[in-house]
């Protein structure tokens, strides 16, 4: 993957020298051409095409923003509810992710889903402790949410 990025930058620089205009927009055009070339020639270059991974990262960011907006609306609904009939509590969520980086991402994503806030990660990185603002509501839905997140994170990191 690193090799492909280097090749891409070299192609962009060559494009700049060939067209003899040294501006950012020429560099950008060259970079896009480089992506196209790498896409066409991907059979001859080691590793898979690196834009695949970039697209997955972008998907993860979109997921992040979507959840953030939803949880904001949810919390505002709760703030203006006349009667505060919530049942908060802390529950443990087992996770399959291993590395620190993946767990950090998952904990942050969970903090942004509606009604949940990650409080701590267990010593052996196998559980995330989550504070839910309304437990009966959350426990049902948390498993699908966790699976979508774990899948999206694994696609990026592995």
């Amino acid at each position, binding site marked *: 993957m690193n090799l492909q990025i280097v090749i891409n930058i070299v192609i962009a620089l060559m494009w700049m020298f060939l067209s003899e205009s040294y501006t950012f927009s020429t560099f950008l055009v060259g970079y896009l051409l480089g992506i196209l070339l790498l896409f066409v020639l991907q059979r001859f270059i080691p590793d898979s095409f690196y834009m695949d991974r970039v697209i997955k990262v972008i998907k993860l960011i979109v997921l*992040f*923003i979507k959840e*953030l*907006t939803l*949880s*904001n609306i*949810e*919390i*505002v609904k*709760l*703030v*203006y509810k006349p009667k*505060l009939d*919530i*049942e*908060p*509590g*802390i*529950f*443990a969520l087992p996770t399959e992710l291993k590395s620190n980086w993946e767990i950090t991402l998952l*904990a*942050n*994503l969970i*903090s*942004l889903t509606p*009604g949940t*806030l*990650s*409080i*701590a990660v*267990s*010593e052996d990185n196998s*559980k995330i*402790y989550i*504070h839910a*603002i309304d*437990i009966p509501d959350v426990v049902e839905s948390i498993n699908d949410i966790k699976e979508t997140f774990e899948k999206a994170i694994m696609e990026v990191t592995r």
Partner: protein
Amino acid sequence: MSGTWINLLIDIIISLSLLIGTFFIFSASIGMLRFPDLFTRLHAVTKGSTLGIAGIMIGAFLFLYVEHGIVSGKLILGMIFVMMTAPVSGHMISRAGYHNGVKLWDKSVRDDYAEAVNEKRKSIDN
């Protein structure tokens, strides 16, 4: 004639995004006052403020671009960093609070973390 319509539309969009932003921040502060304990308050603050700040920044960005023709990358960067750091700070504050002995609200129904913390305390004592 069409120019004025577009200007009006853009003005409306700018005002709307500013209003939405302030509304979310206002709700976050009301939540801060209304909710019963540290953790539920953190819910309100970490979530409510991110979209609020994003709305205000988008409004300011559009205003600067339309009125003065400035593309202000700092506003976009500010938005991204707030979105990235709000959950981290929420996590850190709640964790620190829990370890310093902040109690959950009386009506809380569950606390799985207490066992883990107790076990760790015991192993340290031994």
